[in-house]
């Protein structure tokens, strides 16, 4: 058995143990079907949020299918077509939209079926810009389409044994496809490079857990900003697992109590608990809202200084 596989199994065992310890209140008995909403999903969003503040919560907004939310899932199908058929992104988009019944399912397909010409264009605009940035990214562009595997689902999932807990990591492309282990690379698209190490670590851990194999490298592409590469070592995976365990504890605390400790910061402004969080209130009084560094004469709400 290759070293990367041995290490992959070791990471699975370690994750099973460490995540299992903090999620004991969420068992998954064998053969029992758990409703989707009851499963703790430790995805990149949850991990990133917990990394900032263990008490943080999302806004109350209900998930809505939009062009931007659907961009990545549709974009991966378009990207695969661009690479397989050697066509431009717009031609690939049109054929993917034509074949949507075969390529997509469930809520996404139902939503796409409701779109008229203007809606398809709005979705298409998001998709082609996203796809073009990824397709032209030199680490991918120089690989033939058989040398890289575009993951249509865009994620690597692993269910924690005995727990109603799922670790979900982003992964857009695996490369090269089907060649020797030392070349295993994950390509991930992220909105920016501010926390590229976190993204890379979570993707690497997700791969290690779902495939029981440690990858060699993660490349993170932020289309607007550039790219960063990370070799996968024990430090990267260890930090990623620590964040996942913290995120699991944060989710458990939010559902079952006691209240997790808060770390106040700019992110408080997007947290639905802000009004009732003492730490957030103190922070807000000490940090005036700034817009790109400037304090306005009159605050009219919102912010452009990022989260």
């Amino acid at each position, binding site marked *: 058995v290759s070293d990367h596989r041995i290490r992959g199994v070791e990471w699975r065992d370690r994750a099973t143990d460490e995540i299992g310890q903090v999620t004991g209140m969420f068992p998954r008995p064998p053969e029992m079907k758990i409703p989707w909403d009851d499963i703790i999903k430790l995805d990149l969003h949850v991990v990133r949020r917990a990394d900032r503040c263990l008490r943080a919560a999302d806004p109350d907004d209900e998930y809505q299918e939009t062009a931007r939310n659907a961009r990545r899932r549709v974009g991966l199908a378009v990207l695969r077509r661009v690479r397989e058929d050697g066509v431009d992104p717009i031609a690939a988009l049109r054929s993917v939209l034509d074949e949507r019944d075969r390529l997509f399912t469930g809520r996404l397909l139902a939503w796409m079926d409701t779109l008229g010409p203007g809606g398809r264009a709005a979705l298409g605009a998001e998709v082609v810009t996203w796809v073009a940035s990824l397709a032209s990214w030199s680490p991918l562009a120089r690989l033939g389409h058989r040398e890289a595997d575009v993951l249509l689902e865009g994620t690597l999932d692993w269910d924690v044994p005995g727990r109603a807990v799922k670790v979900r990591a982003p992964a857009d492309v695996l490369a090269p496809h089907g060649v020797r282990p030392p070349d295993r690379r994950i390509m991930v698209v992220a909105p920016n490079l501010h926390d590229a190490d976190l993204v890379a670590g979570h993707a690497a851990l997700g791969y290690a857990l779902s495939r029981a194999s440690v990858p060699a490298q993660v490349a993170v592409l932020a289309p607007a900003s550039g790219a960063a590469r990370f070799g996968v070592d024990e430090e990267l995976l260890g930090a990623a697992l620590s964040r996942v365990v913290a995120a699991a504890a944060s989710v458990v605390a939010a559902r079952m109590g006691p209240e997790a400790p808060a770390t106040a910061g700019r992110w408080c402004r997007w947290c639905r608990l802000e009004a009732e969080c003492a730490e957030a209130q103190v922070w807000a009084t000490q940090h005036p809202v700034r817009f*790109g560094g*400037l304090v306005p*004469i009159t605050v009219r709400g919102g912010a452009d200084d990022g989260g």
Partner: protein
Amino acid sequence: VPSPAADRFTVGALLDDLLRSPPPPADQEAVADLTRWFTEEAEARVQVCPPEARPLRLPKQRIESLLACERMTLAQLGPLPLSEALVRGRCTDLQVAQHVTTGSTPEVEADLRDALLTRGDNDVLAWIDESGDEARQRLWRHAEHVRSSLRAGWGQVDGSWWARPQERVQVGLAGGDLVLTCTFDLAVGGPGTDRPWLLLEVKAGSARDGNRSDLLWYSLVATLRHGRPPDVVAAWSAADDGLVPVPIGVGSLEAAARRGLAALDRLVELAAGREPEVRPNGRCRWCPELDRCEPGLASLDAPRTASDATYLDEELDLLADEETGW
């Protein structure tokens, strides 16, 4: 006497020209020197900015605003409430996106409503539904005109250009303490393609010469992101199907860099707490602080300039760069 027949300068003609006669590449060494110099100068300025004010952000409209009037800049921070001009701008961007991706249809209003709904732009839809009949009619009339302009001046854009609506660029300098952002209404060619690289700024109104400064800033930020400058940046105005193309060379990049640094000087000082200076200018009449600004009020008595009349164009784009990219 009718004017002699002449080919109008259009987006379609520009793309054909670029394909037929690609501009020679810029001097890469000179470009690298310039971006290095700009980066060093910008980072030196940010060093003196207090940590609590970081990161600083310098989108194009803030450069223009800072250089016009500092007090107006501080008064206008934050998202603008929707207005007819902003909604018109959003719709124009969507029409351009539709034109180059799936193609427009005669059902302009239905397509725009569908696009806004698909994007989750419920605030814009609400604004449209709550506006009066006259405003709605103006909006759809403008949209019909945009569609005509696109068909006449653009024609079908070949897919090989890899047209990319609302392509965003974000460059972090000084370890992320200074963030430069741009959203190109449309990028075609360039990285990933074997075609010349054109960045297009879409204006819902009419073209004006002041757009050049914005275009040059785009070219600088694009160069910082991709390591090479775009071949041409251009502003296309839907109201008159006008096109202002600007070829990019080292000289134009340097002009943009010097203007950006001048604005950054002011940004850093204001972020550190200096009182804003007041400079009456043609945009005073739209400043939220006008009622409390004597020099601004006094300036209203001055005759209006041509650039005042097209201020709506700038308002149209304010949200686009700063917020969501649209």
